[in-house]
């Protein structure tokens, strides 16, 4: 079940990209959820660049990568790394494609035939709709004062908690979007995602949700 929880957390990070409205006063947790739900309802599409920093024991050094994330309601997704290895996946409803330019591999999948991708898709789309009840049933949430505008999520489930220590989500100063997500594993490995150039409700072509061709 660790897989499920991990993907849930990751999906949470991605979906917290959904912007929140600007507030003059610090928000309570409840207010933040209300804002998130409201914003998610108004979000038809989202595009963002991101930088991923992986501190994993399996690598000799910090692994930096850059990428782009696209979402279009109701069920189109693109998660793509551009540097150093062009790779990623697109999802169109229940079916998708993934690619890896390094190994020159590209294949199709369906959420039913690939349990891991199925869980990612399920969680991403669930988060796009901001299912607060579900979120609260799985995590203990704490609004942090430092760094400012940050949420800390601690898994409630023992199995998940044995694997993930915590997840920290930081919103932009204007509360329009998630600026940073840090996921810390129990073993000390961590993944940091920093989002920039977030665009809401821009028109995304259907080609954006197609896998690229290798030359």
């Amino acid at each position, binding site marked *: 079940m660790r*897989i499920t929880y991990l993907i849930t957390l*990751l999906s949470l990070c*991605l979906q917290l990209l959904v912007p929140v409205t600007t507030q003059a006063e610090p928000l309570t947790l409840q207010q933040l959820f209300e804002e998130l739900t409201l914003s998610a309802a108004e979000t038809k599409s989202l595009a963002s660049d991101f930088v991923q920093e992986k501190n994993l024991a*399996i690598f000799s*050094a910090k692994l930096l990568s850059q990428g782009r994330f696209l979402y279009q309601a109701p069920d189109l997704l693109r998660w793509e*790394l551009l540097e150093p290895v062009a790779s990623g996946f697109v999802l169109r409803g229940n079916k998708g494609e993934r690619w*890896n330019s390094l*190994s020159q591999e590209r294949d199709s999948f369906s959420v*039913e035939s690939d349990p891991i991708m199925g869980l990612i898709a399920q969680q991403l789309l669930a988060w796009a709709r901001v299912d607060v009840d579900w979120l609260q049933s799985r995590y203990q949430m704490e609004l942090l004062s430092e760094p400012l505008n940050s949420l800390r999520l601690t898994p409630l489930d023992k199995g998940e908690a044995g694997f993930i220590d915590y997840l920290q989500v930081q919103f932009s100063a204007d509360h329009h979007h998630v600026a940073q997500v840090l996921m810390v594993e129990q073993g000390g490995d961590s993944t940091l995602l920093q989002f920039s150039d977030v665009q809401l409700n821009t028109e995304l072509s259907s080609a954006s949700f197609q896998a690229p061709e290798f030359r």
Partner: protein
Amino acid sequence: MKLFARCYNGFENRRGWLVLCLLLLVVFCGWNLSQLKIEESIVAMLPDGESRVADDFLLLQKAPFARKIVIHLRANVGVKTEQLLDATDRLRDVLPAELFSHPLSGPGEMQSSPLLRELGDYLPSLADSADLQQIASQLTSEGIDHSLAADLAQLMQPQGIVLKDKIRRDPLDLQKFTLQKLRYLNPLPGVRLVQGHFLSADGRSSLILADTPILITDATGGRRLLDAFTQAQHELPAGITADLISGHPYTLANTEIIQQDMKLVLLVSGVGILLLFLLFLRRLRALAVYLLPLFSIAVALLVSSLWCGQLSGITVGFGAVLLGITIDFGLHVYFALLHGRGKRAELLQAVSKPVLFGGLTTLAAFAMLLLSALPGQRQLAIFAIAGIISAIILALFFLPHFIGQGNPAHELARRGYTRHIYDVVPKLRWTVIAIWLLVVILSAIQAPQLKINGELRQLSYLPPELAQAEQRLAEVWGNMRGRALIFSGTSDLQTALHSNEQIWQLLGQHQAQSESVSLAPLLASAQTQQERLVAWQALWLQQRDTTQQQVQLSAAKYGFAADAFTPFFNRLDQSPKQIDMALLEHWGLGGLLDNLLLKQGEEYQLLTLIPDQPELIKSLETELSDLPGVTLVSQTRFGRQLSAEISSDFNRFILFAALAVLALLLLLFRRLSDVLLALLPVLTGLLVMFGGMAWLGLEMNLFNVVAAILIIGLGVDYGIFMVCHGQQPESLASSRAVLVSGLTTLVGFGALVLARHPAMYSIGLTVLLGISAAVPTAVLVIPAIRVKRC
């Protein structure tokens, strides 16, 4: 024949003794009926002795799903997978446990099963020589670099978090070789496992498999089962429907359709027989004629149950139907005594000859069934012989005392019987012969087209909704119930496993592995596993150092830590372990083992499912014959074999019956022309029956074979009576007796043509065709060819 006249005279004033005898018979038969044990299995109608058909039939019952209840749930377009799976679980949970035991909607969450976590550790025991060749070809610098590049890309993706530990333990993705072994374990061709459920490829169907204590032959239990299922279906939300597929709905549908058919047929035949009674008999005492078959059946049951012990239900059913023909003997005696001219004892003496010989020829025909390869037909022979002998005795010794005296008022009518229509219209003779010839020629042209079909399912009623449910199941899940089976059986598990491997290799040579289901790829014999371990170690002895160097080179290139893949090399250094049955059960594959590894007493039977393709079956039959303890069973071949056995049985029966009948007719008539004349009704009846069936596009089945015996028995009787009628100076009103007998048979058995049950319809049609031809041939054609000598 004077014996019968003397006996008649002797008992004329001592009828009380006869009544006493009959009463004793009734009491004894009644007691026997209360003790009667009826066996309901179809096995009695499958060849025994050297034939393998019955053995094959029993083996086919061991196929996975053969005895399972399969519930097929279907979701309309728009229903989400989650909703379907929820509905599946809800339905599974509300099925009553006393009727649906061990309901299973899937193998459960595979992520939580130790199988996927631990399977890779057993690669050394699983990798065969072809796998090792592929692994070796992957251990090049390019191959290793390619694998690590793929690992890097995966680790950077969201799914990388999940795969991190797996990649450290298996950077070259060697686990795929173990996962391939699981492919061949799936007996459901179209299945995917989603959230631990069986789900179809299109995501719109799911399955529940269950056992049940209700026997497939138990119609009452089957009704309870189906009612419970219907009740449970109410739990399904809108847009989701479910079909239950098992033997029970067939049993129930057949039982119900037979009950409905019997009501209709009994009504029609009852009205028909009443009309015949009013038209031709019109006397209360004539009812004794109708009681004669009932007594014969009771005696037949008594004798055959004492002889055979347990009787087959099919034997009893058919026997009772066939003994309906014994009414003939009674009718001939009745018409001769009441409408013949002369003293009663003389008339009885005169009619006793054709009755006796008619009975003997029928007896000879049935006796030939004793040579049948089908135990049920041999039982039927004993049943029929006992019934016919008792019918002859009853007709000639008892019946004359209970049918009363002829009415002088019928004198004019009697004269009418003696004047044949040809005396009135002589030219009609040639018209009748011309029509008869035309019918015979047309039938002779069609008859060779008749085919024999040994498909047992054809004998059962298949309601359209059940046929559609089966079709839907096959469309979605593939042919889960129709594959051929290979059994590898021996008292030693290791030998059975070794044979199973050899079978798997043979399937590989035929490129049939991808469509087959076998335990062999996952569970090899201990000896084979040991050989694989040795080969595995030899490979890594040769390749380990170069592989490690190349992995380190590529790892550095992609930024992996120096110790990133230490777990992989540690794994290589571990002592490899073997796979056994306990491990498979630990992995949650116990249910699969139950399907593919059967234990009967001290014998293990490993089962391989293969596509039932005639070419493949033919090739494998020869190749597998060299493997001891290995048996191939195919449904299509079973049907072919059964057809061949029935065909050979029927041909043998026809030949011997023809010889026996011919011998008796020669003994009776001693003139070839009379013999040929007496054979006309039976030959015409059979020819029209075969030709008519071929013309209607019908095929000969087990029940038609039995019905053909009826045509032979009656047809010969008609011939004998009509030829005797032509020879004897006494008027025995034979034409009328034959006519009434034929009409009784037609309304009695021909009414079965109204039935919807295929077996009953089949008998009805056979009898209708055969008797419709035999009666006019006897009553019209024989007198047209041979004028009565007065």
